[in-house]
């Protein structure tokens, strides 16, 4: 039992590092380190980059994934470039950043364990099926 918990904990840590690297590579330049829309090139863009606390926080996982997979306006579509697991890591990263400054609900605290334990997104686990246009992979 202790071993199983330890394995899940290690997997969660490893995924956490990968997620940080992924966010740093693909998102920081526009969204900024804390997802506040203040990345190094944000000021050069013709459109304002949103603050995750005002946008992502209002959206469900399917909507967030759709924006990451298919892109939105000037934001690149990462669907053709990244794996399902990487997309899921990105969803998780932006959701965590969108919660900055507020107390997480009790069920939100279990997300990292679910993500580490089974590499399936929440809506699969809860039985909602794949989002539109994301069934090809």
């Amino acid at each position, binding site marked *: 039992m202790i071993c199983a918990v330890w394995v899940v904990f290690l997997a969660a840590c490893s995924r956490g590092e990968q997620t940080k690297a992924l966010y740093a590579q*693909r998102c920081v330049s526009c969204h900024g380190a804390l997802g506040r829309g203040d990345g190094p*090139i944000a000021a050069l863009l*013709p459109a304002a980059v949103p603050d995750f606390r005002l946008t992502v926080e209002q959206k469900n996982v399917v909507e967030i994934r759709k924006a990451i997979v298919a892109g*939105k306006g000037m934001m690149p579509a*990462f669907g*053709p*470039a990244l794996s399902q697991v990487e997309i899921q890591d990105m969803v998780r990263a932006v959701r965590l950043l969108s919660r900055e400054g507020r107390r997480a609900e009790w069920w939100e605290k279990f997300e990292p364990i679910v993500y580490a334990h089974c590499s399936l997104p929440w809506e699969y686990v809860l039985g909602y099926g794949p989002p539109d246009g994301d069934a090809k992979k």
Partner: protein
Amino acid sequence: MRKSNQSRGFFLALLTIFAFSVASAPESSAQAPRPGEKGASRQELRLPISDFSLTDQLGRPFHFQSLKGRVILLSFVYTSCPDVCPLITANALSAQRALRAGEKPFVFFLTVTTDPEVDTPAVLRAYASRFGVDFSNWALLTGEIPALLPVWKAFGVKVKWKARGLVEHTPLTAIVDRQGILRVVYIGSSPAPDLILRDIRALLSNSPPAGRPKT
């Protein structure tokens, strides 16, 4: 005496650092943006570009030669680029939108991918649609690596693959005149649209019109 030697050594070290910084200055200033160029250096040149064939956003063959008679704004980007490419495309788009009705048939916009593994015709089409590109005088090109390599080389674009969907490349935007000669190159994230327009208009007025090109 020993103290004097130490201070002399320190002075020599400072002198060496200064000499190195002076020696490297011309290269860095060549890359530095000029005032009003918003993050891109500009260079004028005359370099004939050989014909090449790639695949456009609809999966059709596209021949560079078919654009002879038009001024071409050509940029090198990839669709999942998280930094400079959206800026390059946005600036080219601003230039496209600012063209007058009489200029539009004589100017063409080309986007050449630096990541053909990810950028299929469908992916390029979706990318351009998200930006709101007018496809009447804009094509997005992809192809196999052996077909793209000579194009990248002809324009001096270096491409380095880092991970799937993550490519390091020269952020280059170029203008080719009506005779197919490369005339202006901008290197940097954000060549200003008014500067691009000024150069396009200068080439439109300087080169003799070759009749209305085929659309």
